[in-house]
Structure formats: structure tokens, C-alpha cells
């Protein structure tokens, strides 16, 4: 019997489905790449140690064991997550360029913005998993210490993850035009200033010389106010966090991420590789 030979036809049409598949493909590879990073596991281990230490510290106190554990644990989650967002966000594009792995990817029918969005998608997934994992361990210790779960803890986790997203997106902007180390330094600056935003605003109209004021106004206008995402005090003191505040802050974070991603895509699209 004659064997029927079928010639494979390759589509050269650009469809939305194809575009989404390409982004997902890049996201999946980025996820695989990032979960192999030593820094992820070493910081995660450090986070577990901190959370464990919070349990030990809470045992030293006669009162409010759970509150001490929660307070210390939330701080550890915030610091470790922030550090990871900066380090991984800074290397997201710059490392691909330094390693030259970007060449074969972008020689395909892939837009530069797809590459940036795909890479960020992979990073966000890693950050969400990381924050969730750390929070779960923290909650376990919190409950063992006699604490009671509340919606405030959940809101705190969501806000914390949003902050990581904002930080990673900002780091990605710097990563799209500079080296890994420079991007990490710039992003760390954003982190520090973002958490000092309230103080910065307070001194903006009082600082001398007067010529510095427009610069400070510009900084406070452009950089994200990361203090909005910090609700650790409210959570540990069982103060109410309204859904209105949570939703507004999440929206603020998402808007900021959109702005940052758009900026990173624009810069990267114009860059010669």
C-alpha cells in the first residue's frame, strides 16, 4: 500500500491566540528559570528561619505571643519578598541580554513587549508562590501560638503581593536599559524612597534650599508610595483594614504596574540589542 505523505503546513498568520501562546511560553520558561535560582531558595530558607525565630521570640514573652510572632513574621515576609522582587526584577531583561539568550527568542515573530510581559508573568508567578508559601508557614506558627485568623491577614498578604508586583515592575524598567547590578541599585532606591514617601512628602515643602523642592515634588509624584501597602501594624494590632482601602490600594498598585510595564516595553522596544 502506498504510504500517504502529508506535508506540514506552517501558519504565518498572527492571531491573538498565537500572541497569547507566545507570552505564556516565555512566561513558563521564565518561571522554570527563576525557580532554579539559588537566591530564591536561600532567601526562602532565610524567611522560614525568620518566621521560626518569630515563634521562638514569642515564647520569650509572657503576653501576646501570637502578636509578636505575626509582627515579626510579616516583617520577614515583606523584607524577603521585596529583596527577591528587586533582585529578580533587575535581572529579568538585563540578564537575558548579558547572556545573549534573548537573540534567538527575538529573532522569531515575537514583539518586544510580548517578551517583557512574558518574563514579568513568570516572575509574578514565582513571587506570588513565594509570598503565599512564606505566609502559610507564618500562619501555621501564628495559630500554634494561639492567634486567630482574620480577613486582615489575607488582605495584608494581597497588599504585600501587590507591592512585590510594583517593585518587580519598577526593577524591570531599569532592567530594560541598564545592567543587572545598576538595575538592582536603582530598584533598591525606589524601595527605600517608596517606604519613606510619607516622610518625604512632609519635608518637601520645607526643605532648603528651595531649588530642591521641585525635584522632591517630582520624585514623590513619579515613584510609588509603598507605605500604602504596609498594613503590618494594623494586622498585628488587630486594627480594621477596610475593603475600600484594600481595593483602592490594589487598584493603585495595578495602575502603577501597568505604567511601569508600559514604560519598560517602550524602552526595550527601542533598544538595539
Amino acid at each position, binding site marked *: 500500500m502506498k504510504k500517504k505523505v502529508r506535508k*506540514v503546513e*506552517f*501558519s*504565518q*498568520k*498572527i492571531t491573538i491566540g*498565537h500572541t497569547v*501562546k*507566545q507570552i505564556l*511560553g*516565555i512566561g*513558563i*520558561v521564565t518561571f*522554570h*528559570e527563576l525557580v*532554579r535560582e539559588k537566591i530564591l531558595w536561600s532567601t526562602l530558607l532565610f524567611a522560614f528561619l525568620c518566621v521560626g525565630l518569630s515563634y521562638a521570640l514569642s515564647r520569650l514573652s509572657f503576653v501576646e505571643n501570637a502578636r509578636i510572632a505575626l509582627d515579626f513574621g510579616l516583617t520577614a515576609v515583606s523584607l524577603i519578598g521585596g529583596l527577591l522582587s528587586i533582585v529578580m526584577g533587575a535581572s529579568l531583561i538585563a540578564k537575558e541580554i548579558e*547572556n*545573549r*539568550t534573548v*537573540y*534567538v*527568542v*527575538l*529573532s*522569531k*515573530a*515575537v*514583539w518586544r513587549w510580548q517578551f517583557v510581559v512574558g518574563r514579568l508573568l513568570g516572575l509574578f508567578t514565582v513571587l506570588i508562590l513565594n509570598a503565599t508559601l512564606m505566609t502559610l508557614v507564618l500562619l501555621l506558627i501564628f495559630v500554634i501560638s494561639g492567634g486567630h485568623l482574620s480577613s486582615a491577614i489575607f488582605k495584608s498578604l494581597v497588599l504585600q503581593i501587590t507591592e512585590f508586583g510594583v517593585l518587580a515592575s519598577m526593577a524591570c524598567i531599569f532592567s530594560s536599559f541598564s545592567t543587572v547590578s545598576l538595575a538592582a541599585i536603582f530598584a533598591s532606591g525606589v524601595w527605600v524612597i517608596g517606604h519613606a514617601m510619607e516622610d518625604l512628602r512632609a519635608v518637601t515643602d520645607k526643605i532648603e534650599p528651595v531649588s530642591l523642592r521641585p525635584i522632591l515634588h517630582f520624585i514623590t509624584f513619579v515613584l510609588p508610595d509603598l507605605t500604602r501597602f504596609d498594613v503590618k501594624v494594623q494586622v498585628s494590632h488587630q486594627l480594621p483594614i477596610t475593603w475600600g482601602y484594600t481595593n483602592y490600594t490594589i487598584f493603585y498598585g495595578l495602575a502603577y504596574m501597568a505604567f511601569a510595564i508600559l514604560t519598560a516595553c517602550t524602552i526595550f522596544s527601542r533598544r*538595539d*540589542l
Partner: protein
Amino acid sequence: MIEIQGLTKKYRVRGLLPKTALDAVSLTVRKGEVFGFLGPNGAGKTSLIKILVGLMTPDSGTAKIMGIDSHLREAKFKLGYLPESPYFHKFLTAQEFLNFHGRLVGLTSDQLYTRVPTLLEKVGLAKSRKQKLKTFSKGMLQRIGFAQALLHDPEVLILDEPMSGLDPVGRREVRDIINQIAMTGKTIFFSTHIIHDVEVICSSVAFITNGKLKGFGNIEDLLGKTVSSMEIRYSLPYSRAPEVSELKESRKTMDGWVIDIESPAEKLEQEVNAVLTSIISQKGTVRSVVPRKNSLEDLFFAGTDASV
């Protein structure tokens, strides 16, 4: 197939004066050609290739792949690219790597299922499909690089120094793959600084130095237009020295005399005949007449004044 018109690109390296990587380069590569882009290191080969595959934007000029501007996404469906010393995501296995790039070029799961094993077979990596790329040798990386470039069966293949850094076995393997692909009628554009690679593989060639194109065309035509030479070895009776004017430029060797005749191709035959007649008139014996064709190396040095 590939049309490049007045391509110019300048760089500014760390705030210094701009360096011209490409200076109004124009050339055409026809369908089915194996085109060698020859030039010393730093001549501008990689810059031109990066513009062709859309990684870089020219300051002026155009580059088209099958009539489509190279910076457009549509043009990339038509080409496959293998960068110099390929750097891939080394944590992936060969199969995962091809699946990833297959999705990027728009292959469906069914197509990947058949296409990936076929290509792995074609580049001789079927047995290493589950091996991580970080364990691959340089030659194997080059071969998997070819496979990713061929995933969507492109009509144009652009290879940046595909044999750079390979040992003789690896070079031979890569050369065989290029020859195999060339037989399927694909257009291959590859850059190199090694003249021998061009002589062995290419049908056409372009020379570039310091960003300027020094000429391009079919290799046989280019060699045909240049001065050829002929070497005649002869001996004279009783160890006599050549006396007639045609033989004045002869050199003495261990067993006789040798004369090199350099002349444009159309006059060469006439001059050779004159020399042979002179040898016979002196009762000499012609030992050998060896035609010497100009090589690409001669052409390259004549045209570029550069060292390779």
C-alpha cells in the same frame, strides 16, 4: 530574496566618538544561494545580521527579506537565525528547548509532536533529546541551534559565524548540515572570517571591512574576472641559462628552471605559447605546465588590504 539598500549604522561606545559599523552597504542575495559574508573581526558582519533579524535598527537604508522590511514581524516568519556562539536557556532539555521555540514560531502541539523528533534526527541529536543543554558540547549546541532555526521551515537561513570556535570534527558536521539544507533549495546567508569555509560551501560571496562593502557576486564570476597565472617548469641542455627575452624572469631550481606567467585571462594563452616556443627553440624540455587560479584569499586581500 534578501535585498539590502544603503544600510548605515553608527555606534557610540561609552560616550566616545561614533564608530561606523556599516557604511551604506547594498547587496542582493538571490533565492537558493549559499551566500558567504566574509570579513575580519569587527568588520560589521554581526551588525548587518542583527539588522536583518530585527535585533537592531539601521540609521538609514533598508533591509528586506522576501520583499518584507526586516524589522516587521511578518519578515521573521520567513527566516531562521543562528547567532554566533549560540547562548540558549541551558536548563532546558533539547526537546523542551525546541518545544519552546516551536511555540514561539506558532507551531501547534500536533506539529510539534512530529516536527521536533524529525529535526532532532536531522541534526543527529535524537538520542540526546532528554539531555539538558548545559551538558552539550559546543558542536551539539550549534546543531540544536540549527534545529531551532529550521523549526518553521523558513525560506531564508541566517547564520552568524556558524563554525566559530568549533574543532575540525564540529566544523565538518556543521558544514555537512549547511550543505544538506542548501540542497533543499533554501537561501543561506552566513557570515565568517574564515575564507576556506566560503570556498567550500558558498556559491556567492561579499567582502566587508570597516563597515564598507568591498564587492560581492558569484564566486566563479569573481575569480574568472581576475588575473590568472601559469607556472612552467623546464630544463635546458648542458645547464645553460635562458637566453631569450621570454625566459628572462625564470628562477633556478634544483632540477632546472621555473617561470611564472601572470597575465589577464585573454592574453595568458598567447604568452604561454610564446614561452613554450622559446624553450623549444633553446632545445629545452618542458617538465610541467601548471595553471594557478586566483583564490578567494587573493581576492580578499586585493580588495580589502586587511588581514583575516
